[in-house]
């Protein structure tokens, strides 16, 4: 089985978000970049398929040279090879088209992507990729087993979960649940050393349209001060929620 894990290079979850160039660009100054958390759960599940079922695991990202430390980390965790498509990922459909080219050329059976990136939150790349290639697709995937050509997946739905049966080739949009938080791996020194020897192939993008463009960004309006209620006067909170906030 040949697996491709799609990795997005995103600001660490603790990052403060600021914008620059007249609020038209995300300000990367002082920001630490990491593997998108939803993708990291998928990468870790892919490592399980590698170790238990002998799968080959490649990783791919669409981004400039500045994303290479993030993709090297994926190699240090245990992926066999990496591909970087040398383009700025400014639109979900554009990224899906780039990934479709990589999947076509690499002959992958299973593509594991995150449900969404935690920066632009588009949540569209996995589904677009699957549709472009006519592969099966399961979103918000919280469990995945592969047996030969058959796949059994769990999908998170609003208020519960759904068990799904399908076949390879398959694309999933994964999230926590594919593996647990405690299963995530911190690369060790040996992994980091080995990652330096592994192939990181840079490919140029194919032409693709960008049907959406972010014009301007803004930060949420600053919050007013909290109204404190005394712990001995809880009835006052009920009163405020009813008469002032009008939410009960």
């Amino acid at each position: 089985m040949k697996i491709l894990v799609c990795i997005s290079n995103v600001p660490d979850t603790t990052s403060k978000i600021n914008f620059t160039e007249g609020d038209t660009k995300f300000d990367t100054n002082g920001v630490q970049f990491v593997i998108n958390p939803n993708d990291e759960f998928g990468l870790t599940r892919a490592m399980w398929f590698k170790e238990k079922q002998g799968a080959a695991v490649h990783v791919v990202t669409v981004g400039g040279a500045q994303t290479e430390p993030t993709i090297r980390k994926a190699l240090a965790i245990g992926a066999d090879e990496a591909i970087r498509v040398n383009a700025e990922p400014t639109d979900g459909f554009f990224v899906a088209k780039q990934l479709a080219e990589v999947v076509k050329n690499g002959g992958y059976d299973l593509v594991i992507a995150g449900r969404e990136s935690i920066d632009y939150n588009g949540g569209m790349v996995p589904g677009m990729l699957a549709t472009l290639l006519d592969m099966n697709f399961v979103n918000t995937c919280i469990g995945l087993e592969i047996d030969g050509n058959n796949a059994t997946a769990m999908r998170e739905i609003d208020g519960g979960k759904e068990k799904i049966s399908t076949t390879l080739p398959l694309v999933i949009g994964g999230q926590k649940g594919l593996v647990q938080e405690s299963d995530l791996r911190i690369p060790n020194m040996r992994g980091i050393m080995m990652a330096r020897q592994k192939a990181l192939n840079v490919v140029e993008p194919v032409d693709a349209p960008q049907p959406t463009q972010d014009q301007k960004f803004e930060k949420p309006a600053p919050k007013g001060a909290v109204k404190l209620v005394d712990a001995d006067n809880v009835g006052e909170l009920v009163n405020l929620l009813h008469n002032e906030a009008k939410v009960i």
Partner: protein
Amino acid sequence: MSVLVYTESLKGKFKKNAFEVASYAHKVAQDLGTSVTAVTFNANDDASLGNYGVSKVLKIANDKLETFNAKAYADALAQAAQAEGAKVIILSSSADSKFLAPILTTKLNAGYVPNVVAAPDSTSPFVVKRTAFSNKGFAHTEISADIKVIGLSSNAFGVVENGGSAAVDSFSPSLSDGDFAVKSVEVDRVVGKATIADADIVVSGGRGLKGPENWGMIEELADVLGAATACSKPVSDLGWRPHGEHVGQTGKPVASNLYIAIGISGAIQHLAGVSASKTKVVINNDPEAPFFKAADYGIVGDAFEVVPKLIEKLKEFKAQNA
């Protein structure tokens, strides 16, 4: 040329978000000088959508579509969009809408923007405001493709009734076997309890509650309020509560009218995930907890004393206002 809207239902009954997306579609249709066509799947009371601004319903009645199937539903919606010549398609932010949106968008060569929080800034060019960076910011995004697909954030626009009426036409999309290559085997859905996705009120517990055995009062508080229960990331990582309850940047987003955080300090990731909630209440014994900076109302105190008192006061309130 109408605006098309996907109105979701469960076992024949429209979900709350169906009325909100219909209301939003009505606003967009007014801006564009056109009308709203809704697509329904095995729904019971199709004509009721008229009250929310829908002029025409394309009613799909098909046993094979009884359980949601993203590809088949996307195929049906694409055919409806083509039949109507729709240039704008409105979806919700439910798990189902987010599943089918990229499939539908790709089939139609459209442009898709999810997490939209307001009526379009302008319709020519077509620009919408959406959340980005997991609610730590907003983007104003132009859709330049001919067909525009919009995913509306829940509780962002609200439900608007206008007393109109809708004509109901039956619609039979042609579906292929390939549409059903991803099969639902079993659906395990909590019944009779509000879900985080569509609850008006969410009651959430953190590590300050000390252990899973103390969740009784959280559930009782949620019960009194008709609320959904949620938890912080450490609580789900520790296995005190199921992952489906984890709210925050890497968990579920919350956009309820009222969010009550109990024993949650308010890590930046958690605050981002719940920031779309309209009113936030924090109960925590640490006055320095970051959540107090993000909340509208707060009580500094021991949750084990405050919450039972709050339950009692709410029961009194409910009895008086019943």
